């Protein structure tokens, strides 16, 4: 049983630990107090959701151009890691929103767009699950990756426009945060730490993808058991 620890893994663990400690010890933010510490996980997660999406797009386009399966693996791996971070961004956003605004969810443009992205990612992964032929899978998911990104600006603009038309009544919400140098520094470090974590996760996920592709190649087409089985056709015997 090989246990390989890559320097990236160690860097990820180290920076993550530092980010956690910073998040907990930094003096509380002026307007939101201790609650603002949640942005030390929420903002990095949201940033990574977008980064992973871009990497998936790059991988998809690269595959369509080069037809090298390596790019397909990059795109798919980044999509899976991206689903995770998008989900995390939504969940941490909810955990922050509830005590701040009293509700788990608000319908502002950015949140809606993040939710839409989450479903697009999921669709991408579901699409891949459904196709057994590796090159067809790579090709189709690449096209979907491109199609999804083309849609995103449309979705973004329509939702922003919708929001400006229907301004919500002014709800009691705390003003924008005033971050002092320490807080801002902590946030930057958190973003850096999570980016290293993304890189480490992506690397491991790509490695897994490579193994699975190799397995697929060796095993070839394996029929679902029973697919070739047919009951004897006795209708002639009885009709005849």
């Amino acid at each position: 049983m090989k246990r390989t620890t890559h320097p990236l893994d160690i860097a990820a663990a180290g920076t993550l630990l530092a980010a956690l400690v910073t998040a907990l010890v930094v003096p509380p933010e002026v307007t939101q107090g201790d609650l603002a510490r949640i942005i030390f996980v929420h903002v990095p997660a949201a940033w990574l959701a977008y980064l992973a999406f871009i990497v998936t797009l790059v991988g998809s386009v690269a595959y369509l151009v080069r037809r090298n399966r390596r790019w397909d693996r990059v795109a798919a791996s980044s999509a899976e890691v991206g689903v995770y971070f998008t989900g995390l961004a939504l969940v941490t956003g909810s955990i922050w929103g509830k005590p701040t605004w009293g509700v788990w969810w608000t319908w502002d443009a950015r949140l809606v767009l993040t939710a839409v992205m989450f479903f697009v990612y999921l669709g991408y992964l579901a699409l891949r699950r459904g196709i057994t032929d590796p090159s067809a899978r790579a090709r189709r998911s690449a096209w979907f990756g491109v199609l999804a990104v083309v849609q995103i600006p449309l979705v973004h603009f329509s939702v922003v426009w919708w929001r400006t038309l229907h301004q919500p009544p002014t709800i009691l919400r705390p003003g924008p945060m005033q971050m002092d140098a320490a807080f801002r520094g902590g946030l930057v470090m958190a973003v850096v730490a999570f980016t290293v974590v993304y890189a480490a996760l992506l690397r491991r996920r790509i490695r897994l993808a490579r193994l699975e592709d190799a397995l697929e190649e060796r095993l070839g087409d394996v029929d679902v058991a029973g697919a070739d089985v047919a009951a004897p056709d006795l209708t002639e015997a009885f009709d005849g």
Partner: protein
Amino acid sequence: MAAGFWAQAAAIGGTELRTELRTGEVLLVTVPFGAVALMLTPLAVGVDAPLLQRIGPGLYWVVVLLFGVLVTMRASAADTGPQRDLLALLGVDPVARFTGRAGATAGLLLAFEAVLAPVAIALYDIRVEGWPWVLALLPLVAVGLGLVGTLAGAIAAQQASAALVPLLVAPMAVPMLLAATQVMDGLRVDATIVGWLLLLVVMDLLLAVAGVLSARPLQEASG
């Protein structure tokens, strides 16, 4: 030599659950689809918090019932003619097959409900009164919908187009929809809900009996 009834049912149900684990169709496809449906409505009707809070529970149950039918359909699609014939040849009791399948479907529907519930609560800011009763609602509806869906799938069999089974199920889902929403409403205004819960139990029992009685005739009809 066929195994006992419950062993057969468990084997069939277990196979379906394991298939779901591998293909992830319910979790990866139908649940997100239901969640998207929940997300689309406020975009359409406007983000009026009191309005959304009022329609939230009802919309949740509508999505559960209509999209839940897709969960019941996933099995029928995977169950091709030859495989059904093979099971019959092996002496698998059609009633056991129905029970196993309905059970697995109900389990998947319960998971479907459980994952969508926090989504609905978050998006519509639903305040849930009387948690224990609501928790009892989930399996009652899951079992009922699972039974109806499995039955409808067995009846439609080869004729199943994409929308046929949902069309067959939707009218029969009306009592379940009314019962579920009235229970949740009733819990909020402190009205009696026992009648509606009883209705659900009776419906589940009737469906179970119908399923058991029709299992063998339906299988022979499609052979």
